[in-house]
């Protein structure tokens, strides 16, 4: 399946210009442009997220948050990036050098690969496989290898325990996340993100499959949250127990990559949830109100995407800063005794809904796009 990534270029007429002036070089140039755009988006989103999280956290905690660098501390993340670049990368004795060095690569590459599959807006998607859902699940689980390698190679007992926890945690929640997505695959009958969005024009998946979809949505948020190792599921780091868990021994930018990937993963989970459950970049459309629909289309699709994702990110921050950390057995209980059985039943419920024609689009065909 071919990709429409060049659409923004076509809008501006650049694509034509490329084709005519560069000839056979046009494709590599376009690919490089994609790479540059991705890189920029990756870095900027991470920086914005770090700032937003610090600010929102502060508000939850009756504090002000960063307010020294720039007005309202807006440049705080920039200052952080500069600082972390200037920090020494400390070499630890007796680490497994190769694995220690390789771990951040896994973290960043895994999140970058997933990041590439996110549809940010109409035709703003780098990798659109027809098995998008499977691809995302597969690629994002690469990150865990980074965590395990970091914990193992550090030759540090805190890191080791952190890595072990993280392994058990990740594999468990990977299941729930996968099953929750599968519920929607049952509903939509496609695994490609772009097709999923197209089908949600008038009725988001979360409404379409009503009970079943909402359960799947909640489960996906919980397990996605757990996969990103963020509180209350931050056991691999567990600041008050393991000091810094699997990245205890990392310093400077090597640590920075773990940090970066963590924030990006939060974004990725929120954006996949947006795409799969909340209609992705699709504006709010009401069947029959053509004028309204037209107006909604004036708001750019990426604004819709980031708006919806932002709400979910806020939700994840809200949860993170409200709850204490789970213990390893609580965490695994939650998954194996609650989420997974509920999930299995939920898939069956969804299948029944679909076969019996009880989804909203089946009941009201007018909603189908």
């Amino acid at each position, binding site marked *: 399946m071919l990709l429409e990534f060049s659409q923004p270029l076509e809008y501006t007429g650049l694509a034509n210009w490329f084709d005519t002036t560069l000839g056979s070089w046009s494709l590599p140039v376009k690919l490089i442009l994609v790479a540059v755009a991705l890189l920029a988006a990756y870095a900027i989103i991470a920086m914005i997220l770090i700032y937003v999280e610090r600010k929102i956290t502060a508000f939850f905690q*009756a*504090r002000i948050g960063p307010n020294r660098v720039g007005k309202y501390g807006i440049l705080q993340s920039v200052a952080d990036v500069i600082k972390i670049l200037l920090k020494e990368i400390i070499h630890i004795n007796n680490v497994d050098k190769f694995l220690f060095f390789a771990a951040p690569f896994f973290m960043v590459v895994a999140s970058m690969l997933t990041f590439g599959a996110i549809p940010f807006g109409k035709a703003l998607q780098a990798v659109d496989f027809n098995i998008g859902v499977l691809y995302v699940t597969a690629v994002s689980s690469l990150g865990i290898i980074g965590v395990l390698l970091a914990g193992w190679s550090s030759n540090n007992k805190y890191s080791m325990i952190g890595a072990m926890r993280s392994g058990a945690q990740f594999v468990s929640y990977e299941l729930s996340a996968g099953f929750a997505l599968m519920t929607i695959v049952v509903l939509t009958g496609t695994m490609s993100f772009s097709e999923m969005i197209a089908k949600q024009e008038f009725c988001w998946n979360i409404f379409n499959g009503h009970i079943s979809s909402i359960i799947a949505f909640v489960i996906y948020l919980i397990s996605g949250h757990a996969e990103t190792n963020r509180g209350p599921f931050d056991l691999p780091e567990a600041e008050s127990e393991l000091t810094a868990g699997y990245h205890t021994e990392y310093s400077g930018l090597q640590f920075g990559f773990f940090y970066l990937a963590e924030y990006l993963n939060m974004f990725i989970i929120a954006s996949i949830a947006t795409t799969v459950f909340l209609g992705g970049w699709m504006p709010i459309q009401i069947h029959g109100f053509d004028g309204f629909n037209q107006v909604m289309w004036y708001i750019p699709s990426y604004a819709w995407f980031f708006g919806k994702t932002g709400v979910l990110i806020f939700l994840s921050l809200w949860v993170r800063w409200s709850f204490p950390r789970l213990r390893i057995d609580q965490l695994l209980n939650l998954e194996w005794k609650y989420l997974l059985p509920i999930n299995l039943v939920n898939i069956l419920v969804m299948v029944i809904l679909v076969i019996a024609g009880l989804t909203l689009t089946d009941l009201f065909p007018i909603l189908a796009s």
Partner: protein
Amino acid sequence: MNSILKYFNGLFTGIKSLLIGMSVTWKELWTKKVTQQYPENRATLVISDRFRCELTIPHDENNEHACTACGICQMNCPNGTINVLSAMIETEDGKKKKILDTYTWDLGMCTFCNLCVITCPSDAIKFNNQYENAVFTRSKMIQKLNHKGSKLREKKKEQPLKFPEGGLKDQVL
């Protein structure tokens, strides 16, 4: 059956408790923030009168203080923070008299227990609330408290002290 009931009961009470917790943080999101914006708030910052920051020997407009160099404060200090050096001079009528030469106080060693102040028989020293005491070298923490060329106040002025209240003067030697 009972265990199944318990299972679902646990699930729903759990979710309820979590939602209540989230409602608390939601409320806090909109409350007034408590962070103090130091140093911007320097002008409005209220440091309580009794806050002990720096030991001082108050000097009046004639550059006179009340310290008789008796050394009781030095004796009372639990960890040798105060050092009173006295000198002998001869007054006009030929009597020998002990006067204060240098009064040094080491901020770095002081535990701010206030014993020196409450035991001073002539109310010559007191703590002020000048709270910005950071210096770059340790040697700067040793301060000379009596001003240059200052001398003992002849007759005691009636000056009500802001603090300390209470008659504790004679408690300790």
